[in-house]
């Protein structure tokens, strides 16, 4: 059983600095570039969470312990805070029996990262018409 979700990046086209205050609006466009998350259920007994970032050749392993604890916490906060609070939410809302080990893969579309270096290697100049 695999679950996939993806979400876009953004470009703020008006309202920079203004948008920090509630009275002012910002016009934000969502990008075609998206982040993709895939989750596959695993059979392991402790609730192991394996997070793979293939583009970074990275694999991090965590364990969610009932009562709201995530082991190995501290090096990748953006991922780990989501794991901690969402797994806790699942346990609280659906009960501990709803939890199981998972393998998570996170991938980003190219546009989130500068391709200038790669482009220079292929083309003579950095401007592509």
């Amino acid at each position, binding site marked *: 059983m695999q679950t996939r979700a993806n*979400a876009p990046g953004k470009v703020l086209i008006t309202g920079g600095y203004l948008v920090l205050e509630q009275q002012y609006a910002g016009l934000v*466009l969502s990008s075609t570039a998206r982040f993709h998350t895939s989750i596959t259920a695993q059979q392991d007994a402790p609730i192991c969470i394996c997070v793979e970032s293939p583009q970074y050749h990275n694999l991090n392993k965590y364990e969610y312990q009932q009562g709201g604890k995530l*082991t190995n916490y501290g090096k990748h906060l953006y991922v780990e805070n989501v794991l901690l609070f969402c797994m806790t939410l*699942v346990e609280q809302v659906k009960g501990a029996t709803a939890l199981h080990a998972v393998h998570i893969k996170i991938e980003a579309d190219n546009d989130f990262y500068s391709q200038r270096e790669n482009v220079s290697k292929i083309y003579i100049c950095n401007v592509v018409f």
Partner: protein
Amino acid sequence: MNKTGLGSSAALTTSLVAALLVHFQVIQQVVTDAQKELVHRIAQFCHCLSQGKIGSGFDVCAAVYGSCKYHRFNTSVLKSVLDMAMQSNGTCSNELYVELSKTCQIPMLLAEQVDHSVWDHSYKLFKLPPGFQLFVADVDQGSNTPSLVSNVLKWKAQNGDSGKKFLRFTHSNSILELDRCFEPASRSSI
């Protein structure tokens, strides 16, 4: 490798929150409005916690809802739960979860009710007019947003914006917006 400033952390956070909540069947694959708002509030909380501060949240809102005209939520919404969460390191105590549940109104959202009085952000869905396309240049570096923001806020505090620059900017921004770019039925407090 340099990022292009498209909001990777907000997109990452949002896709991971959505995937986990769908995978463990807290929300449906085809989300209801209330379930979408649940993803939004949990993502805003997690993102602010990871950043160590409460930003305006337009990046997370765009990641959840798409292109829109956005007014931020009141900072006070997240202040208490974030203060509590910043003390805990890798743990979500029952007390902290209760605070998070109350702040994000989790039970209410799961009961398909969306209360706009506490989380008072607004978003009006937007599309570029026909014939317009957005191009972004890759300059192989980001801008140091936190320092830019603190400089502007410092100026504003000292200056009091007596030149009413912010009001002039708002007026100019609203001229750019064409009525037909907004979807008629989207939620707005404007």
